[in-house]
């Protein structure tokens, strides 16, 4: 099963990639091509399902089985597939409009059911494919093709929603943070149950710089905190800042003075309740650094575990079907 040096499967398809040159999607695709061969799952046992949007072109670019579905419905398609084919590793690639607007219901329900699928949400806070309308994650004030006076409403926060849906694996990474993204993808793949990964993805055509705070090497260390299980939440270019849990919630403190590492919040991705994870998910730029890494990774029976489907052999199925057909009151005419 495990890929060895000379049989490393090739997950790259021969399709011409049609994203805008420079799109953050390229970096994510590159990571997936790197990670997939290391998982010990053959290309033919891997299925990538997507909806509609720039990100949803993803399946075409991987030499696996794939389905480019309809807008927002990938989690539903993947649920039916995984339910009937537990042997496959099923990935869902979606975007902020796909997963949180038109298909929001399916995302919540796939997560609460703990369907064993890996959902990658490329968040670029804009509709790209349809030419730049605001999306459900666009920030208020953003001028877009459909909001010339600026986007009006509060955005949805993918991680908060995933946690509220009781997802068993919730993580975040950044398109161009290759090492971090690769590790998060590996962790997601290894998780048994729904894995939800939000990936900050730059759409330089319609919403360039939306995640500059998290991507720009000059400033990012002061605006993101890479969390790790059992580790205190330390960040900052000089690792001189941390997150401490105050009665009012998480607060940023400077280390070395009143507070030191032992005073900081220590991340526990295995916590039974997701209260603290929700607090971490609620840390938002520019008031707080935003967390990247695995917020939650807990064990819970998967959808398939709970459904306990049976697969009788043909002979016993014939007997069972026959019994069904003869159910209820019957009579015989000679």
């Amino acid at each position: 099963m495990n890929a060895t040096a000379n049989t490393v499967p090739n997950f790259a398809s021969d399709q011409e990639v049609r994203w805008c040159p420079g799109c953050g999607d390229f970096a994510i695709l590159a990571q997936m091509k790197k990670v997939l061969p290391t998982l010990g799952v053959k290309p033919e046992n891997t299925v990538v399902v997507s909806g509609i949007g720039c990100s949803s072109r993803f399946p075409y670019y991987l030499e696996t089985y794939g389905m480019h579905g309809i807008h927002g419905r990938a989690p539903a398609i993947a649920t039916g597939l995984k339910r009937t084919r537990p042997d496959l590793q099923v990935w869902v690639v979606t975007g902020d409009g796909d997963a949180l607007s038109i298909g929001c219901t399916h995302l919540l329900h796939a997560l609460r059911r703990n369907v064993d699928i890996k959902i990658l949400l490329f968040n670029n806070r804009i509709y790209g494919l349809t030419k730049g309308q605001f999306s459900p994650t666009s920030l208020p004030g953003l001028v877009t093709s459909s909001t010339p006076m600026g986007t009006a409403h509060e955005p949805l926060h993918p991680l908060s929603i995933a946690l509220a849906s009781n997802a068993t694996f919730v993580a975040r990474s950044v398109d161009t943070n290759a090492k971090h993204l690769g590790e998060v993808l590996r962790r997601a793949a290894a998780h048994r149950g729904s894995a939800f990964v939000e990936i900050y993805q730059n759409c330089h055509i319609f919403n360039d710089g939306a995640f500059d705070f998290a991507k720009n090497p000059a400033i990012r260390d002061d605006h993101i905190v890479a969390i790790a299980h059992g580790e205190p939440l330390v960040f900052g270019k000089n690792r001189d800042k941390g997150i401490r849990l105050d009665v009012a919630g998480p607060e940023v403190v400077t280390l070395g003075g009143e507070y030191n590492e032992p005073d900081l919040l220590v991340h526990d991705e295995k916590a039974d309740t997701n209260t603290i994870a929700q607090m971490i998910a609620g840390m938002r730029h520019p008031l707080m650094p935003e967390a990247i890494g695995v917020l939650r990774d807990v064990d819970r029976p998967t959808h398939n575990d709970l459904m306990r489907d049976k697969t009788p052999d043909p002979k016993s199925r014939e007997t069972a079907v026959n019994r069904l057909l003869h159910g209820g009151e019957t009579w015989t005419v000679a």
Partner: protein
Amino acid sequence: MEIDEKVRESQAKSPVDVEAVVIRFAGDSGDGMQLAGTQVAVSSALMGNDIATFPDFPAEIRAPRGTPAGVSGFQVQFASRQIMTPGDTVDVLVAMNPAALKANLGNLKAQGTIVIDIDAFDAKGLRLAKYDENPVENGSLDEFQVIEAPITSQTRKAVEQLGIGHKIATRCRNFFAMGIIYWLYGRDLTATTRYIDSKFTGEVAEADKLALRAGWHYGETTEAFERSYQVPAASQAPGTYRNVTGNEALALGLMSAAHLSGKDLFYSAYPITPASDILHRVSRFTECGARTFQAEDEIAAICSAIGAAFGGAMGTTGSSGPGIALKTEALGLAVMLELPLLVINVQRGGPSTGLPTKVEQTDLLQAVTGRNGEAPMPVLAPSSPGDCFNIVIEAWRIATKLMTPVMILSDAFTANGAEPWRIPDITTLEAIEIEHPKSPTGMEPFRPYDRNEWLARPWALPGTPGLTHRIGGIEKADGTGAISYDPLNHEKMVKLRADKIEKTALLTPDLEIAGPESGELLVVSWGGTFGACQEAIVQAQRDGLSVAHVHLRCLNPLPRGLGAILKRYKTVLAPELNLGQLRQLVRAKYLVDVRGLNKVRGQPFWIGDITTEIHRLLGQEK
């Protein structure tokens, strides 16, 4: 058993033979009328009668008590001959309250019998039913035989010995009412007693049985009825039988089709009247390997079925009109993906929420044409409850042969109605052969949109080495399946998909004409109106009229030979429970001036609706 002896005894007195009887139980939606009617149907079927049922209930689970809008009815016909409908008019109406009488009096035969619960005809009951005066007293029912049975008080008295509360005691009223009918028509109590024991326990079971027997004794000992009747057994082909409703037969058909094709059944649905029953039933088929999924919405229901189909399972979903509307986009995807999929629409009154529990055939055009783009799919319709079983197997055969979604159009009348059904031998039903491509031996790339002689593409399953491929809603290049925006390729693919669906006609049986091969009048019917049309035509033929009948089980594509048949008759009539949807399709395709007989009242056709029209068209007004 004491009752059995009484059956024999009372029948020995003076039971009169009748050929067919129509009973209608009517009461509040909590009065157990559906149970009463179903039990009469089962007992009669077990006695060898042909039966047909028509549950007619409000959309509300517990509709306002005592009001005509809240009345739940169940009509059952049992007969010593073949019957195809639950009957046009009612011989015996059992009215549990004034509202039930008011709502159903119109269906009663002249000189018919009314059994009323006189205890419910008090001031309050009459007021709720909006009767200004008591119909029992004002002479308005004089043309009928009215049996004023104190059902409520007698039921309470009958179960008094159990010391149960008033409320539970009153809940057995339906069994008392059934008892009266069982006596009146010499029905055997055994099956219902068995049913009570299987469904209820303790005091409730005892009370039900006591009430049933008390009702029987009431019929026998009071002199309310002049005589009792009996309906001899009908002649039936040899075999083992049971009653099935349309929804039950659909569920059994799904499971059987999965078995015959060696596939795992995946049935996914969102609750909706009148299709939910299919989900309830299939969810109990776990021993047979059925997988059911109650999805978060209609869209997820069909999309998960598409996902299952991609993986190689038998992906199926069911709903009713409004739900099908929600599934529309995904249906288009399934057309594009060319994966086998079954979609059941149990039609109800529309548009929008419409009449959720009532019958219509108003979704035909939705099924045939209701998608964006050129998105044809086969559309089949069962003609009776029992036929629902066959139609699913047929539909799955077509779906897998042609790699296409198939729509099945049932309706509320067919879904809820029951008839005796000869149980097929699963071991002798023809297997549904499905081929999945194997791993390639050479190096040539897999072409997911290559086609065979049926124009079907290969159903390559994930997990097969060497066949990895991507499918999706974007237009495909012929053969390779790569994304293609090429204008000529698109036109070619549109036509290929259409040509493929046309091949359905080669997979469905030839049309059968009942009646003269040519002549004055041809009646063309489809779906659940089959029984009423068939009986009407037999009657008209008996009256010496030249009328033939052709029934369509496949609505898209229209069956081979239909055009030629239509042209052999002077007049063609299409009775439909819509404003003329089949008529529109047939006219457009064959340029034949089809006449319509159209009814959209949420009620099925009565035989009389159709015979009257036949006589009118042939200038033989009755």
